[in-house]
């Protein structure tokens, strides 16, 4: 009996060791062979876990960006056309899996740059790994300021970039919009306190709104996965606000708005970029009509780049691209631009070229990097929901 167990244990250990090392070695060989005319870029997306819709959009846009480029013949690097190959890894929305995906992409797939992860929980550990390995990474969607800053040294990280604006900027824009454009004096806030992004937005909004002479009449929270907001909404109803700021993910928004209407709340809602998904229109129906929210981009923009992107994406995936898709597409655009400018597919050269990008015409507007931080200079779009569509309302640039 015991001998059998010993054998099982030994066998299992041997098998797993062999499997890992062969998996590693075989990958290494193929990448060495292929390296000549292919540039490999890694993608880390939340395909499973708590925000699978984000991962799905990221994956779709990444595949489309690469396909578009390869169909046009590839990327011109130092006088030679090179094809792009992407390797997509799932991080299941968990920090440790994001880290192992990143490590795998770097050491086994030999990627020159990484796009993703989208959630800050995954992006921060990933950025620590890319920093050590000296591989540039661009997170399309992580708005946490700490993703691009090394907290220990208080300095910007050298290899971490993002394609989106920062939460603090967005929160300020929204608070001023509520105060000045919507003429609100009293605001109520309802947000998901277990999400670092949404909590940050709520805090910045509250501070800015109060600093500018407004008052916050109700500050209500819920936790991820909650579906019943009746208690919070009843409190909000009783505090008679002029506007309700609702930094919630688009999948929660329809529930909140519909339950509010059922409780007889008529106060307008104001949303953040977490609303920005074409799914919201389907999910919310007429209930969200007339509300404003901030976004990274507008699918109804008149910019030719955006029009082409939306058309291509819809043709491929039968779905209007959300902001994660647009930002992922832009992240790829930035990397391609940087490779072209550097004339090299070396990680260090790409990193230097990214930090020098000025006025890149992306789907989500003009993107520039200052050279000092990984945070881009770009504007916030305010959208209005009208007749079952997102309509461009105004741009706010820094």
């Amino acid at each position, binding site marked *: 009996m015991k001998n059998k167990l010993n054998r099982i244990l030994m066998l299992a250990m041997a098998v797993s060791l062999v499997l890992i090392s062969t998996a590693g070695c075989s990958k290494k060989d193929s990448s060495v062979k292929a390296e000549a005319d292919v540039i490999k870029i890694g993608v880390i997306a939340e395909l499973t876990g708590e925000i699978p819709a984000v991962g799905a959009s990221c994956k779709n846009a990444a595949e489309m960006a690469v396909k578009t480029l390869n169909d046009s013949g590839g990327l011109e690097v130092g006088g030679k056309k090179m094809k792009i190959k992407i390797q997509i890894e799932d991080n299941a929305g968990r920090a440790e899996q994001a880290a192992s995906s990143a490590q795998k992409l770097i050491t086994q797939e030999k990627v020159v740059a990484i796009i993703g992860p989208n959630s800050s929980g995954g992006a921060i550990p990933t950025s620590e790994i890319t920093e050590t390995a000296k591989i540039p990474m661009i997170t399309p969607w992580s708005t946490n300021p700490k993703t691009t800053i090394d907290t220990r040294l208080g300095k910007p990280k050298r290899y971490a970039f993002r394609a989106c604006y920062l939460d603090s900027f967005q929160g300020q824009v929204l608070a001023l919009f509520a105060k000045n454009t919507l003429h609100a004096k009293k605001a109520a806030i309802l947000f998901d306190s277990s999400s670092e992004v949404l909590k940050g937005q709520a805090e910045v909004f509250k501070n800015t709104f109060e600093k500018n002479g407004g008052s916050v009449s109700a500050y209500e929270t819920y936790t991820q996965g909650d579906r019943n907001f*009746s208690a*919070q909404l*009843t409190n909000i109803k009783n505090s008679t606000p002029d506007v309700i700021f609702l930094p919630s993910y688009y999948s929660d928004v329809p529930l909140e708005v519909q339950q509010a209407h*059922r409780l007889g709340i008529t106060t307008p809602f104001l949303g953040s970029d977490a609303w920005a998904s074409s799914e919201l229109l389907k999910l919310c129906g007429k209930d969200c009509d007339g509300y404003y929210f901030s976004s990274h981009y507008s699918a109804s923009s008149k910019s030719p780049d955006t029009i082409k992107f939306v058309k291509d994406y819809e043709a491929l995936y039968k779905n209007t691209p959300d902001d994660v898709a647009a930002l992922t597409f832009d992240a790829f655009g930035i990397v391609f631009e940087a490779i072209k400018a550097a004339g090299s597919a070396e990680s260090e050269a790409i990193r230097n070229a990214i930090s020098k990008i000025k006025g890149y015409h992306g789907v989500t507007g003009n993107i520039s990097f200052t050279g000092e931080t990984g945070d881009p200079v770009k504007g916030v779009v305010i959208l209005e929901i009208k007749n079952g569509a997102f309509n461009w309302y105004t741009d706010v640039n820094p």
Partner: protein
Amino acid sequence: MRLGLSYLIQQFLNILQLGSLYALIAIGYTMVYGVLSLINFAHGDVFMLGAFIFFLAALWLKLPFIPALIVTVCVTVCVGVLIERLAYRPLRNAPKMSAVITALGVGVFLENFTLALSPYPQHIPEIVKNRAWVMGQVTVSSIQTIIIAISVTLMVILDFLVRKTRFGMALRAISWDISAVPLMGIPVNRIISQTFALGAALGGAAGVMYSLAYPVIDPYMGIMIGWKAFISAVVGGIGNVRGAMTGGFILGTVEIAVTMFLPSTYRDIVAFTLLFVLLIFRPHGIFGTARSVKL
């Protein structure tokens, strides 16, 4: 915060709606636990499947509410029985916890299988015309009324089944002593299948009503609510059907009452601390009793 009468009535209606949903799902946990001493962690995901099947029935088959409800319940019953046959029955004589882990695995499988087919959340079309009646400051919606009415009806029927029918007697006999039951001529396997069918039916029905009230559905919707229903079942005294119903309403009340009186950030802390304290004073739940040991 104003605590007028109308505010209290409004919150009471909220409690009834949330509590009856928790109660419906909790019954499924408690019945299966009663016959097999198995915490069926896949139950929350059967509930999720209920919502998705209802979505398909309403969107593809374009069925009206009642037929869609019936189709959903039929399909979830099949799924429930199938899970029992394929995953739990082979483990009937295995250590109890292996079956629990299998249940966890089945649950994760159902979640991610649904996810692989539909990564984006889905919206349930407005299948029941929603009306809101305003009485003073209290607003009552037709969906709220339907949910409370159907849940209560189902619970009354189930209570009758368990207390008055031959099936109910067999059920209680099995939960008393599964080894003695075959001696009395009770077909154990059939009763267990029927229990799973009944639990899945209630879970499916709860999924339908949940998606009426909260019409955005995603593959992970069953996890949190499953845990909460499990907590309800334990608070009531696991294995006890009336206890599960009471537990559901208690959890609903605590969750909503905490949000009424305290900053809602503290809801989980307070709700779970109350649960902690309750179990210290009533270590076997509210209706549960310690099985006395004979020395």
